[in-house]
């Protein structure tokens, strides 16, 4: 474990120096999966709004509060579902929260990550959600995908905040881990 910790520190230094994140073992071969960063433009990052029900595309974390079921749409926001009858759940609204993956609730306040911030939203009326507080820059941007033994397009910080990684063919996958 010590070795791994020290190698991680070393790779962290390398990352800082080169802008790429190198993992110490040999680079993956040319057949390794490749990823590209999906950027969120800085101008759009903090736009939180309530929309009508949206299609479920990529479900992430779930959360239950009283008769409501909340479903994260990875990187995009939260579906609010009326779950009084679990045999017939009804989508009520979609809270668009750029970069969102996580959620928790106390009383009628929903805490969620919004790109690099945490937002506190009043969801007493799920069709008219209002922002009550924003804690700015709580998180650091994700510089690399979760997967290992892969190649990826090195992120360009000028293009915006990386909100997720898409597994796809990449012309220039110069970074790897």
């Amino acid at each position, binding site marked *: 474990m010590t070795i791994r910790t020290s190698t*991680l520190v070393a790779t962290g230094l390398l990352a800082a120096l080169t802008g790429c994140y190198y993992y110490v073992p040999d680079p993956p071969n040319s057949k390794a999966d490749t990823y590209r960063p999906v950027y969120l433009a800085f101008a759009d990052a903090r736009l939180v709004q309530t929309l009508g029900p949206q299609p479920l*595309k990529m479900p992430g974390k*779930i959360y239950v*509060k009283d008769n409501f079921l909340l479903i994260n749409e990875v990187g995009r926001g939260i579906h609010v*579902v009326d779950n009084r009858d679990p045999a017939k759940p009804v989508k009520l609204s979609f809270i668009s929260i750029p970069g969102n993956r996580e959620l*928790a609730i106390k009383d009628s306040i929903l805490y969620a990550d919004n790109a690099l911030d945490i937002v*506190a939203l009043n969801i007493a009326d799920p069709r008219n959600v209002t922002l009550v507080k924003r804690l700015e820059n709580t998180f650091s941007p994700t510089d690399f995908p979760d997967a*290992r033994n892969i190649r990826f397009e090195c992120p360009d910080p000028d293009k915006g905040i990386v909100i997720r990684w898409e597994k796809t063919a990449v012309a220039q996958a110069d970074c790897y881990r």
Partner: protein
Amino acid sequence: MKKPLPFGGGVGVGYCRMKQILYYFLVLATLLSCEKGSSSADSISPGSGTGGSTARFTVANNALYVVTNTSLQAYDITRSGNPRIGSKTNIGVGVETIFPYRNNLFIGTQTAMYIFDLGIPDQPRRLSVYNHFQSCDPVVAQGNYAYVTLRGGTNCRNTSLNTLDVIDISNLSKPQVIASYPMKNPHGLGIDGTVLFVTEGDFGLRVLDVTNPLLIKQTQFFQDIKAYDVIPTQKRLIVTGPDGIYQYSYADPTKLQLLSKLTVEP
């Protein structure tokens, strides 16, 4: 609790009555606390909801806890609309999940399970660490046991290890592994009483009887669904996976019944 106790005769009736009331109160308090200890959601804050085992945000009492990749950050939410930053605890690399139980937080990282005490809500105090092999590992707890799933694979350091570990937490300062069961590709888990649900990713959903944690028995294994995480609540199981959200009734835990599915749309 519902049956009145025989009335204590003799002298000092008033005093006895008082003692009786006190006794009732104690019994009630004990029952209530037991009930709380055995419920599935076991959310320690009445105003909070319930998340899955892979959550990185959780609410307990008057605090919001958030794990980043390397630390645990607390926020005071005594006034829920006005979260205020509390203490930050560095944990190390690969912090993945957070699970509140009673007055503790169980944090899963890629190398260990950490137990924190929440005596001071916005200042979690580290009680102990249970180290394991490098893997992905959400954790849930109930009674004297914590259940941790360890998953190998591309996102989890390429170990081939896939297990469900049972950890005795009767002494929170000295967690001890007492059993380990082979799994296929466990992602998340949830517990209610003696029923433990384990999501096996593309391999399905397992229903386990944990009446005896040393001899866990599988009662059902749904291999036709893909499952990432679960929330068991009020005899209803909510399952999330890449194909959609499934809801089952587990009124009979040996025979789950599908209630509905919210399907992923192309």
